[in-house]
Structures are given as structure tokens and as C-alpha cells.
């Protein structure tokens, strides 16, 4: 594989597909888009199979100097590899979920393929400016998808989405300019090992935080997410929840933590606080929603809070856990939005109360919806558990209080998801039109079955997903070691009584 520019090829395929779609009529555009994403998925599989676990940190690197200081540099480590895989895995499913789009199909497909290009670019970029361009450019097609193909209130939603996400970016750009000026390079691997002055780190960290916190999204800058999800078409929701939300987490793990370890430790209590608030508040909000997509959107905020506490736990379990939560959430939230899309396509409403008793006429749907619900709740054996468990276990070592509050998420999560499931799938068929809906067809099965298998795979044998990133997380853990918070548990050494005293104590009790 060495020398072959596979990463560039993975960017080029959807880009060419996007250009082609612009000039094609609907049916051809659908085919081209599906083919392009499938080819990218195959390339992704080849990439994964050729990724040398335990080899060099950065693999498949490409570099071309463009002009002074700025270079087109690509490369991936294990962390990026996993997120690339998540993206290329979800994209064909998103295209498949776009059957109900009938307006401007060519442009829609082009926008989707462009999202893929930019998302992959974000995870592959090794140059700070290149990263920034991909990071921000990704917003534009997403914004168009919501604004053109969205629901009734799409203009407000797209505006909210854009305003929020752009706000943070400005500050991040200024910070980047400063960093390149100081370090003399825009090469990300170099910057990851560069020790910035701890005082300056504070400001740089905050600037990056402004951008990543919005993308994550963290409470209280999350309100764009429910609006965007509710208005976005199904495919848009899947890619938004599945991949776009991972950009914030990726940003933290790639930039904030390794580049500003001292500042990260300094601000960790802030992150913990916001995460605790997110878990409790957004979970309770999810409980009272009557709109399915809004409910899942709010649950995403709560799940992303588990990512941030894992990241800011400063230990291997937390970091690996947060990566697994990101991957799992990509699959599960994507799958849940797909499940909503399936019944939305039939009844054209997201109102929970319009459904009920779907287990009767849609038993296959009920089964898959149950699996994804349980994965969202974090049932052991599904993907949701491993990451959540490691993240919470990681934070427990640093802050027991934060762990306690965030673990209430497992109670609240069960409450709102099962309450949703009960209202949609259990009960009597009270609406004739909902009762007449047919079960999953072949196209829909082809979309949910791979997701279901991936969810179970990650739950039963997560080693496949931990192994590629193990060395990278270990390196990050080592870099963070100097700033690691002490933790509030501090167990003391036991004062074991000698055996005979123990026996004597027992005798004495009678």
C-alpha cells in the first residue's frame, strides 16, 4: 500500500460523484451517489485492513507543499481511522434513506457527497489550515441540506445551526493563526508535541473550546441541535448525529488535550460541570418531548456529555471510552433517526402520539427499534455499554461526584427511551393509518441490518475497535500525565489485621 494515495482517492471519489450529480437527473444521481459512497466504503475497508496496528503513529501520509507554510498534508492514526470508517459506513445508508427526496435530487446528492468529502477531510488533515477549511466547509452543504430539503421550519433551523457553529469558528481561527506564528509550523503532529506556554494555553484552549463545544454540542450551546434535527430530512439527521457531532469530540482529542494539556486540566472542572448539567437537564427534557426526533436529539446531547467527561478524565479508560461512545452513538443515533424516518415516510408525522401498537403490524421494525433503543440505553452486549462503562469508569477515578451525577444518565436514559418505545411500539393500535403501515421492506432492511450487526459486534467484541487506537490513546495518556488531576478518591493502604486477631474478634462477638 505504501505510496499509493488512498486518502486522496477517498476524497476524490465523492467529490467527482458530487460534480457528476449536479448535472444528472434524479434517478441517475441516486445511482451515482450510492456507487460513490459504496466505493468509498470499500476503500475504507481496504484502508482498515492495511492499517498497521502497532506500526507508525501516522500512516498513509501524503504531503504536497502548496505555498509557504500551507501544505496539503493527509494522514491518519488509529483514532482518525475509526472515525473515517464510521463516516464511510454511514454514508451509503444515508443515501439509501433519501428515497423520499423528490425535489432537486441531483443537488441533494451532491450536497451529501460534499459533506462526505469534508468530513473525511477533517479526520485526515494533517495541516492546521487544511483542517480548518474542511471543518468549516462541512457546514455549508449541511446548512443547505437543512435549509432546502428540510421541514416546515427549516429556515429558522438552518440559520440557528449556522449562527451557532460559525460563532465558535472565528475564535478558533484566531487561535490557530497565533499558534502557527509561535510554533512556526502548521503541521498537526508537530503541534501535538509542542509545549505552549501554560498561560497562553488558557486562551488558546478557550478559543478552541468555543468551537468544539458548539459542535459537540455541550450544554448550554446545544439548542441548535434539536432544531436542526427536527427540520433535517432523515439522511441529514443520520449524518448530523452520526458524523458531524463527532467533529467536536475529535477536535478535543486531537487539539485541545494534546496541544494544551495544562489548560485542559485547568478547565476540566468546567467541562465536568457542563457535562453533568447536560446529562441531567437534557435527559429530563427528552422525557417530556412529544416529537420523536426532538427526543432523540436531546438524548444525543446527554450522550455527548458522556464523551466529554471521558475525554477530560485524563486516563486510558476515559479516552478509549469516549472514543467508543462516539462510534457507538454514531451508529445508534443514526439508526434511531433512521427508524424515525421509516415511519415518518409512511405517516408524515413525528408526533409520538400518532403511533402506537406498531409491534402488531410491524414486528420486524419493533425488533430493530428495540435493539437500537437498548443500545442507546447502554445495555451490555450492545455498543452503547462498553464506551459508556469505560468513560464513567474513567471519570470515577478522577471525580466520584461527577461520576455519580453522570451515571444517573443510565436511569434517565432508560426512562425516556423506554417511554418512547412504549408509546410507539406497545399499546393498542389507536390510529387506523398507523395500524395500516407495512413492515420494513427490503431497502429498509438493507439499511438497518448492517447497523444492527455493527452495534452487536462493537458490544460483544469491541477489541476490533480498541486495538487500532490503543497506541494512540497510550501516547496521549502519556502526554497528559504531567497535568493529570489527582482525583478525589485517594484510597489509603489497608491495615489488615493478622489472621489470629481476626479470629479472636469473631470469638469475642459471642
Amino acid at each position, binding site marked *: 500500500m505504501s505510496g499509493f494515495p488512498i486518502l486522496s482517492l477517498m476524497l476524490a471519489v465523492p467529490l467527482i460523484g458530487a460534480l457528476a450529480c449536479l448535472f444528472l437527473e434524479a434517478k441517475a444521481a441516486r445511482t451515482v451517489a450510492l456507487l460513490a459512497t459504496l466505493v468509498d466504503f470499500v476503500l475504507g475497508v481496504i484502508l482498515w485492513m492495511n492499517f498497521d496496528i502497532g506500526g507508525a503513529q501516522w500512516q498513509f501520509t501524503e504531503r504536497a507543499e502548496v*505555498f*509557504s507554510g500551507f501544505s496539503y498534508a493527509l494522514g491518519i492514526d488509529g483514532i482518525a481511522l475509526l472515525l473515517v470508517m464510521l463516516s464511510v459506513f454511514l454514508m451509503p445508508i444515508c443515501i439509501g434513506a433519501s428515497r423520499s427526496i423528490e425535489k432537486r435530487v441531483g443537488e441533494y446528492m451532491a450536497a451529501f457527497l460534499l459533506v462526505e468529502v469534508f468530513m473525511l477531510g477533517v479526520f485526515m488533515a494533517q495541516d492546521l*489550515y487544511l483542517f480548518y477549511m474542511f471543518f*468549516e466547509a462541512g457546514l455549508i452543504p449541511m446548512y443547505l441540506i437543512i435549509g432546502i430539503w428540510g421541514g416546515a421550519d427549516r429556515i429558522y433551523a438552518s*440559520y440557528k445551526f*449556522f*449562527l451557532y457553529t*460559525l460563532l465558535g*469558528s472565528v475564535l478558533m481561527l484566531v487561535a490557530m493563526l497565533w499558534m502557527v506564528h509561535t510554533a512556526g509550523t502548521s503541521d498537526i503532529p508537530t503541534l501535538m508535541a509542542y509545549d505552549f506556554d501554560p498561560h497562553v494555553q488558557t486562551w488558546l484552549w478557550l478559543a478552541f473550546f468555543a468551537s468544539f463545544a458548539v459542535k459537540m454540542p455541550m450544554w*448550554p*450551546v446545544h*439548542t441548535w441541535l434539536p432544531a436542526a434535527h427536527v427540520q433535517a430530512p432523515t439522511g441529514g439527521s443520520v449524518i448530523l448525529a452520526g458524523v458531524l457531532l463527532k467533529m467536536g469530540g475529535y477536535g478535543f482529542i486531537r487539539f485541545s488535550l494534546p496541544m494544551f494539556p495544562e489548560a485542559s486540566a485547568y478547565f476540566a472542572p468546567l467541562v465536568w460541570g457542563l457535562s453533568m448539567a447536560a446529562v441531567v437537564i437534557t435527559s*429530563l*427534557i*427528552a*422525557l*417530556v418531548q412529544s416529537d420523536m426526533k426532538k427526543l432523540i436529539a436531546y438524548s444525543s446531547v446527554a450522550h455527548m456529555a458522556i464523551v466529554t467527561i471521558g475525554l477530560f478524565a485524563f*486516563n*486510558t479508560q476515559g479516552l*478509549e*471510552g469516549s472514543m467508543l461512545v462516539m462510534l457507538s452513538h454514531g451508529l445508534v443515533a443514526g439508526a434511531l433517526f433512521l427508524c424515525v424516518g421509516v415511519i415518518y415516510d409512511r405517516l408524515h408525522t413525528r408526533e409520538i402520539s400518532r403511533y402506537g401498537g406498531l409491534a*402488531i403490524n410491524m414486528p420486524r421494525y419493533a425488533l430493530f427499534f428495540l435493539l437500537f433503543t437498548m443500545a442507546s440505553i447502554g*445495555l*451490555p*452486549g450492545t455498543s452503547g*455499554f*462498553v464506551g459508556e*462503562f*469505560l468513560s464513567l*469508569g474513567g471519570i*470515577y*477515578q478522577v471525580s*466520584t*461526584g461527577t*461520576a*455519580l451525577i453522570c*451515571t444517573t444518565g*443510565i*436511569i*434517565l436514559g*432508560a*426512562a425516556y427511551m*423506554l417511554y418512547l418505545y*412504549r408509546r410507539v411500539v*406497545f*399499546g*393498542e393500535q389507536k390510529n387506523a393509518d398507523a395500524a395500516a403501515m407495512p413492515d420494513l421492506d427490503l431497502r429498509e432492511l438493507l439499511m438497518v441490518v448492517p447497523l444492527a450487526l455493527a452495534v452487536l459486534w462493537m458490544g*460483544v*467484541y*469491541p*477489541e476490533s475497535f480498541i486495538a487500532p487506537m490503543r497506541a494512540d490513546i497510550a501516547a496521549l*495518556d502519556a502526554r497528559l500525565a504531567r497535568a493529570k488531576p489527582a482525583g*478525589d*478518591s485517594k*484510597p489509603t493502604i*489497608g491495615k*489488615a*489485621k493478622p489472621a489470629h486477631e481476626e479470629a479472636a474478634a469473631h*470469638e469475642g*462477638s459471642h
Partner: protein
Amino acid sequence: MSIILIVFLPLLASILAGFANKSLGFVVPKVLTTGALFIACALSWPIFISFLSGNAEATVVPVLKWVASGSMTFDWALRVDALTAVMLVVITSVSALVHLYSWGYMSEEPDQPRFFAYLSLFTFAMLMLVTADNLVQMFFGWEGVGLASYLLIGFWFRKPSAGAAAIKAFVVNRVGDLGFMLGIFATYLVFGTVSIPEILHAAPSMAGSTIGFVGHRFDTMTVICLLLFIGAMGKSAQLGLHTWLPDAMEGPTPVSALIHAATMVTAGVFMVCRLSPMFEQSATAMHVITFVGAATCFFAATVGCTQWDIKRVIAYSTCSQLGYMFFAAGSGAYGAAMFHLFTHAFFKALLFLGAGSVIHAMHHEQDMRFYGGLRKKIPITFWTMTAGTLAITGVGIAGVAGFAGFHSKDAILEAAFASGSSVGTFAFWMGIFAALMTSFYSWRLVFLTFFGKPRWNQSEHIQHAIHDAHGHADHAHDAHGHGAPAEEDAGESTDHHDAHAHAAPVSGTSGPDYADHGDGTGGYHPHESPLVMLLPLLLLSLGAVFAGFVFEHYFVSDGEGEFWKGALVFHEHLIHAMHGVPVWVKWAPFTVMAIGFLTAWYGYIKNLAFPKAVVDQIGPVYTFVYRKWMFDELYDRIFVRPAFWLGNVFWKVLDIGVIDKFGPDGAAWVVSRGSTYAQKVQSGYLYSYALVMLLGLVGAISWVIAG
């Protein structure tokens, strides 16, 4: 290696039956699942017997790598030792019999394959729980049985009450799971591993150490053990986290027998016994366990005395018996706790399946006020349930022999007394009171159901049945509940029962007679259940009669240490102390059992007006107990409603009213205000500004880089 088959055959059968669903008819999924369970059962007994004979050693069979994150590693593995062997026979035997029983009980059910798939899935998860070699796999089984329990309680998903009960069971259990998870985290933090043998080995060295938890410092082992015990409380329905268990009776009766009596609910007891070397290190935790167990055993017994629904009586009885097991463990008599778990599995499964047989005969009627006189109609059910009742009430002669519950319950009470601590004494007295009430409510159940005159004619279900017999539409499970069951809480359905009660006083042979028969039967003819249902009853009766006598030697006598081989903590001095308790302690359980029996006999056979007179005397107390000590009402007020209220406040006030108002909407307001001044030169669309901003930034970057 047979353990691999024991554990994974039920999973395989469950998957096959679930995917085949109705496509292969009903018989194939039923044969697959039931066959798998009987094979698993046949393979489990030899393992148990080899441990009894002292020939077996603890083994661990690795299955698959699971998670390795830094120093936190845990794999899929199957551990078999004496403790597991006990659970294996309990789980596979009861499960196999319940599968068989369901052939008859569920024969009219259109979704049978799904039911059998769930049952086998449950069995798999339960087996994973008891074979766990690390805490996380135990948690996997723990949650897996929770899922199966959720699915089976909600099996009749069309009924709103079943859906509500299913959620309640899962969410209340999750409260316990919060403790379990934090307990695992704390264990890992302290010991650096989640492997059970390693933790148990290292536990003694942590005695006396302290740890920080949420800003305060506590004894390390107390923190860990209490967190884990919260998990046990949830799964085993101990006081405070018990509210899901009575509602879980919404599930089909075979489910109640398997999950909510014999196996799943005992997982908490199993956990405490499995981790007994840890719990031994914290006297505080042991006292808490004893106290909670004793309080539960008393509380649940009081409620059991007042309920009318036959399944609810047995459900509270289960809750109460679990309390016995916990205070036995808390007193250090882990062997006695496991012994009671073992015998209880047989006689309680028997009682539930017997109740199912009664319900089957009485056309889904569950209210004992509409039973009566069934002794001659369903004699085999009657005799087997009597065996179960003799077992649970602990009939036997001290020092000689008795039914199963006699041996195990007496061992527990003696251990609590012999432990000598004040909380142990408290537990002893609570246990004695509970034994009195156990005898009372158990015989009350038998007398109301099988003795006296028939009171069937006032039952809506029976009336439906008679209607159906006259050629009306078939009576499906939709109407399985009591008319229109309350949507949310059990409290309302209780009111419904009250309404029944006014219409039909138990003592009354009077009242409006539906059909002109005058004998209270309403012309209804109950039939004994088919053989597939009676066979499990007969086999379980053997357990209820002999399990105590045969196995006492291994579980709690001097031979205990040899049988357990270190699988749980064994205090030889406690065994000696148990033998040395005063004679009155040995005879106290028998005495209260007799008093309970006589009271029930007097109230429900001899003088039918007596119960009502007592209720009138103690009015408010009765209502309080009858309404289950008001736990549901309390939790609804302090948890459920505030959660929904807070959710609305956070959403409408915080998100929309504050964050949006001063965030994006505020920005929009500023921009639109500004744009009215500038609209002559600009389009006024916000996104065009944003776009210009972005382009400007890109330009700026280029400039900086190029410069």
C-alpha cells in the same frame, strides 16, 4: 466443557425461535427452546452432583476477549464452582419445567414463539450472570435478565398496564444498577482489577483503609460493598426498590414463576454470597444488609396478608423470603442464604405455577374473592399447592425432618439469633413475625381458593366465560386485565378491586347471583390443567418436600466447608453457635407457623365474618398496609411527577426562554434591527451575512499565510 453447552444452547434456541417466529408454526420453536433447556438441565445436575460428592474443583472456561482498556481488562468466561453449580441446577431445572408448563398455559396464545424465545433468552442471561468470573460479565447477565424481564412483563404489550409495569421494572432496576456500576468503578479504583477471584483474594488486605467519595472520606470496603448492595437491592426487590416486583405480575404466570420467584430476583443474594469475602470486610455493610433484609421480610409479609390478587400475594411472599436470604447473608450465614435460595426456588416456582393452574381453570380470574371450593375440581393443583404451602410455611419437627422451607428458614433464624449482634437479634424477631404472617397469608390463599363455597358467579371473567360458552366472540388476551386497568399506577387498579370488594364480600354466600344456580358457581365448570402443566407441578412438589431434608447437610451443616470449597465465606463458629441456640429459638418458628395456620383457619373457614371485623377494628392501619405502605403514591409524588415537571421547566423556561432568547434569537433581533438601517444596501438575509463573513475569513487566512 459441558458448561459451554449449558450456557449457549438456550441462546442459540432463543435466536432460532425468535427469527423463525411463526414461519415454522408453533411446534418447532417450542421444541427447540424446551429441548435446549432440558439438555442444559440434564448437563447441570451431574456438575452439581460432582460438587456434592466433593470430586469437582472450580474451573474457568475462557470464551472470548471482551475489553482491554489500559489496565482494565475483562473477558467473556464461564466460571463453575460450588456456588455456580447450585445456581445452575436451580436455573436450568426451573426453566426447563417452566418451558414445559408454558406449552399448556400459553396454548391459546398467538405469539407463542416470541414467548419461548424470551424465556430462553432470559435463561441464557441468567446463566451468564452466575458463571461470571468478573464483575462486568456479572453486570452483563444482570442487565440481560433485566431486558428479558422487561420483555416478558410487557409480553401482552397491548395492555397499558403491562407496558407501564415493564418500564417500571426496568427503570427501578436501573436505580440499583447505578449503585452496581459505581461499585464496580470503586472496586477497580481500589484493586486495579474487576476479576472476581483477584478482588476476593485482595479484599482482606483493604480492611481499615479509607477512600474519598463525593467529598467525604469513608471506610473503603464499606463504600464498595454498599454501592454493590444497592444493585442487589434493585434486582432482589428489597425495601425501597421493591415497587417493581408486584407490578411485574402483569407478565404471564410462568414468567412470574421463573423470573420473579425462582431465579432473577435471587441474583442479588447470589451476588452478596459470591462476593462474601468482600462483604466480610465491612461490618457496617453487613449490618445494613441484615437490617434491609429484615425490614423487607417484615414489610412484604404484612402486605401479603391483605392482598386479594393470588399472584400479588405470592409476589409479596417472594419479596419477604428474599428478605430472609439477605439477613442470613448479613448475619454471615451465606450457606443458609444459598440454602433458602435453593429450596425457595422449588417451592415458590411451584406456588406460582399452581396459581397459574388455578387462573387457567378460572378463566383468567386472579381475584381470590371469586374463588372458593376448588379443592375437588382441580385436585392435583390443590395437592401440589398444599405441598408448596407446607414448604413455605416451614412445617417440620425440629431435629427430625420437615418440608423444604422448614430446614432453610430455621437455619436462617438460628443464624440470625446466633450472630449475637443487636441487628441480628432485630432480624431474628422480624423473621419470627414474618414467619407468623407467612403462615397466615399462605394458608389464607389456600383456604380462599380451595375451601369454602364457590364464589365464582360474581367474577367478570367467569361471566365472560359463560357468555362465550353460549357462542359469543372469543375472549382474547386483550381483555385479560380487569376491565380497563389504570394506565399508570397500581393504586388505581387497587381502587378497582375495592369496587369489587363492595360488590362481593368474601364472607358472603349471598349477593346477586348471576345465573340461576344458587350454588355460587354461576354454572361454570373449572377443569384441571393438562398434563404438561401438571407434570412440572408434581416434579416441583418433590423439590418442595425433599430439597430441604436431602441437601441440608451440604449447605449448612458441618459439612458446609467441604461442599463450598471456598466459593463463599464459611464461618464454622457460626455453625456451632447455631447448634447451641436455646430450645425456644428452635421451636419458635414452628409455634408461630401453627398460630398463623390456626388464625387463617379460623378467619377463612370457621368464622367468615372474623376478617371483616378485624379490618373494621384497625381501619387506617389496614388501608395503609393494603395500599402497600403507600410506596407507589410516594414515589409518584417525589420522583415521577417532579421529573416530568422539571423536564418541562428545563425545556420551556431554560432552553427556549433563556438560552434561545438571549442566544440565537437575541442575535437575530440585533441583526434584524441593524439591518433595517442597512437594508438599502443589503439583502437582509442573515445567512448571506454569515456567508460573507466566512468568505472574508477565508480571504484573511490566505492573506496571512501568503504574507
